[in-house]
């Protein structure tokens, strides 16, 4: 497809350095790309590739010690040489920005209507009354019901999806020529993501704006992009039309990125491992040598998950309820109750992986915590290895704590920052009185090797590691006590695709080796399809559908499962569900 001729934004030789006491780091190195009128350009890369910094530098929002060089030509002006006063006129009016986190990008102490009014009053001569009327009309336009009432709401009174709609309203208020959207849907559930993308591109078509869309998700790229810029460590490794980037990538990194992107439509192959990105640092300080690695499928052990009747399940959840009472009346009666888990039945067979899939607030983490006996169910029972978990005490409870381990979502919050990782990993061994101190040290070193970290890391602190490394440490900690059952609560969600693949492969290998049983809690359907034997779909505290993985994907019975599957962005290029459609939001996009 030929690109429209006139460039709206032209970034030439953009270089951003950060001067700190520790020296100078180059965040962005000689970046050049163009955005033409009405076009959608995607900036793609993993975390730390410099894509967000690039977005901010176009609006000249990089503060010292950041040092920006090069040229950012917008409609013929170099934004890097404009005065600060002229830039305030450009920001919000000519170029607007949408941030990733709807939770943090709106001022919590300001009514949402006022936050829209603000941008109108900065750039136009309007009376407060007129501005508010337009803000309400905008809220209505972005699909917020009862806009006049909602305009008086504070951000914390709105859901994540609604907040992102407010952000879009703010970004579109002054009818900008260019919208920079920095991962605008990453923090949202997949069905809400589809609705918000739908709205965003609907608005873009209406205003005729161009868009610079920053994302790590190639599925989203395939659906929205005209032109793709692939970044790696602050440099562009490749750019071109979306079809070319996704079908015939030229650079090894792009190829590896495309190969490692999860494909929700690929049928499950038992024993198959996820492709990873192999990086070999080059000696001359240039970009490292990158290649895609496709691990050979592993022949599954004989012990396929046994059908009911032959063995007993390792974990049996029976009519489980968990309610949280938020408020009591004066008489002491609960008046505000959240029913997080409502009558869940689930059986998990030894040696199998069961995935618990659902959107935020579906109760999947609460269920996981109940199973790990970290939370107490309101009603119902959980049996582990034939024993009722809530009745365990003394030695039996201690044994249970050894057998059942949890890997948490956030690798930054789940390791104690003041303890060396060796201590964190071996704490469990010490508590259970296993091994002598020297034996423990050797064992931990061996565990670190197993999860792909160097044994000499044992005396380091968590802050010295990247997110992926920390999650491996958390896995090593979970495995230290040779558990039989591991609950992984969104254990890979915070990781980049390439790191995610490595961690998942590791988990699968360890399952083969030790015969582990997994409860894999996730919202990511593509990963789940390859990784699990059975899937339970959760919604509003209930399991709406449960079955063999392929059954669920090939023949979903429940309407909600079908909606979930449909909403996953596909990497198949050319689908371009949103581009240039300019359609009005359907009724389906309105309800949240």
């Amino acid at each position: 497809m030929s690109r429209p001729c006139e460039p709206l934004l032209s970034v030439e030789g953009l270089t951003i350095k950060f001067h700190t006491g520790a020296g100078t780091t180059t965040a962005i190195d000689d970046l050049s790309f163009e955005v033409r009128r009405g076009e959608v350009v995607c900036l793609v890369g993993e975390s730390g590739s410099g894509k967000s910094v690039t977005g901010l530098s176009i609006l000249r929002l990089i503060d010292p010690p950041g040092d920006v060089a090069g040229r950012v030509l917008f409609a013929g002006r170099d934004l890097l040489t404009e005065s600060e006063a002229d830039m305030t006129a450009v920001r919000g009016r000519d170029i607007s920005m949408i941030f990733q986190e709807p939770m943090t990008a709106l001022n919590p102490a300001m009514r949402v209507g006022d936050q829209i009014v603000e941008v109108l009053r900065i750039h136009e001569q309007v009376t407060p009354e007129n501005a508010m009327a337009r803000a309400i009309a905008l809220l209505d336009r972005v699909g917020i019901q009862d806009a006049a009432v909602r305009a008086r709401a504070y951000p914390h009174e709105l859901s994540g999806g609604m907040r992102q709609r407010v952000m879009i309203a703010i970004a579109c208020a002054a009818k900008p020529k260019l919208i920079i959207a920095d991962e605008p849907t990453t923090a949202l559930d997949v069905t809400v993501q589809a609705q918000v993308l739908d709205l965003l591109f609907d608005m873009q078509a209406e205003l005729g704006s161009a868009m610079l869309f920053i994302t790590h998700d190639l599925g989203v790229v395939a659906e929205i992009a005209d032109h793709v810029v692939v970044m790696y460590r602050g440099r562009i490794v490749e750019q071109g039309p979306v079809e070319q980037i996704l079908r015939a990538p030229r650079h090894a990194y792009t190829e590896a990125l495309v190969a490692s992107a999860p494909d929700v439509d690929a049928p499950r192959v038992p024993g198959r491992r996820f492709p990873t990105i192999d990086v070999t640092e080059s000696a001359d300080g240039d970009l490292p040598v990158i290649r895609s690695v496709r691990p050979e499928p592993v022949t599954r052990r004989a012990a396929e998950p046994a059908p009911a009747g032959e063995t007993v399940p390792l974990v049996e959840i029976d009519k489980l309820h968990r309610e949280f009472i938020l408020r009591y009346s004066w008489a002491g009666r609960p008046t505000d109750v959240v029913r997080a888990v409502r009558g869940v039945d689930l059986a998990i067979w030894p040696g199998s992986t069961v995935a618990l899939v659902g959107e935020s607030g579906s109760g999947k983490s609460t269920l996981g915590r109940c199973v790990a006996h970290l939370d107490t169910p309101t009603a119902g029972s959980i049996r582990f290895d034939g024993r009722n978990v809530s009745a365990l005490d003394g030695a039996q409870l201690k044994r249970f704590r050894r057998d059942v381990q949890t890997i948490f979502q956030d690798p930054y919050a789940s390791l104690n920052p003041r303890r060396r990782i060796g201590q964190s990993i071996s704490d469990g061994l010490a508590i259970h009185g296993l091994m002598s101190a020297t034996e423990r040290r050797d064992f931990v070193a061996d565990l670190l090797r197993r999860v792909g970290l160097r044994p000499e890391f044992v005396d380091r602190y968590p802050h010295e590691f990247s997110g992926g490394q920390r999650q491996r440490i958390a896995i090593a900690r979970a495995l230290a006590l040779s558990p039989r059952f591991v609950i992984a609560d969104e254990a890979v969600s915070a990781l980049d695709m390439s790191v995610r693949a490595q961690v998942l492969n590791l988990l699968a290998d360890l399952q083969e080796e030790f015969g582990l049983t997994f409860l894999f809690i996730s919202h990511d359907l593509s990963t789940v399809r390859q990784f699990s034997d059975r899937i339970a779909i959760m919604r509003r505290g209930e399991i709406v559908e449960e079955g063999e993985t392929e059954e669920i994907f090939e023949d979903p019975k429940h309407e909600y499962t079908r909606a979930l599957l449909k909403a996953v962005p596909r990497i198949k290029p050319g689908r371009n569900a949103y581009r240039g459609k300019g359609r009005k939001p359907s009724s389906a996009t309105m309800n949240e």
Partner: protein
Amino acid sequence: MHRFVAHRFVSSLITMALASIVVFLSIHLLPGDPVVMVLGEQAGADPMAVARVRAELGLDLPLPTQFVRWASAVLHGDLGHSLRSGEPVVAELARRIPRSLEIIFGGLVAAVVFGIPLGTIAARDRGRVSGLIASIVAIAGFSAPVFVSGIILVLIFSLWLGLLPSSGYVALDDDPLTHFACLVLPCVAIGINFMGVVARMTRSSLIDTLSKDYVRMARAKGLTRGQAMTRHALPNALVPVIAIVGIRAGNLLGGTVIVEALFDWPGLSSLLVSACFARDYPVMQGCLLSIFAIFIVISLLIDIAQSIVDPRVRTGTK
């Protein structure tokens, strides 16, 4: 909002009731006999006289009965009479409380008026000379104990410069100008320490807030750096500062003990101190009760102020 205020008001009343029990009990459990104090050393040796005075004062009744009598009298505005002077305690308190509140309020205003800009400069100009100077001033402020900063202030402003009186009190009705002149140094002395706390809190809270997406968002909308600071960053950064001001405002009451002595200011604290030495029970009870009441009213006001600045406080969904 109304519901929140009503809720906080009721819990303040409950706290006040509990506080009155504590005040009542603690005084009665203290060593030292007020009867002996009333009678003097000589007569105090006579058991008959002691028993008579005890019955007169109602001190021979069981504690719960004494409490009920005392509490109902308090609710009727009767805190008894001073054992020393025989004057009604309420009248004495009514003279003293406003004087102490003047110092506390003046100190708070000084602390906030100087502390918030100081903290803002320290946060905004981090890594520059102006930020460093602001930080040093703040640290110096809260490092100096009240009696040290008080003496230094007296040295500079009354002895060397001769601008303000070094101590003393003149009633507002008699001579308003001298009244306020006398008030300045005590307020600044008590406020300087607190200013340091406010500045440090503002600085760290603001640094945290300035890195928030909504501040960047404010600038992406087209606000200048200063507008983003005053409209978006500061209001949010002040939420924890207000909480600290509330907690520390209570401490200012403690600080008044030193300041009132240092500047010879006849307020509530100096009354409490002299009543303690004299074992003047009714006056002690009155002072303590007033201090509790001031404390509780301040925290109620602070909570309401916080709920105005931060809407999340109201619904408890923080």
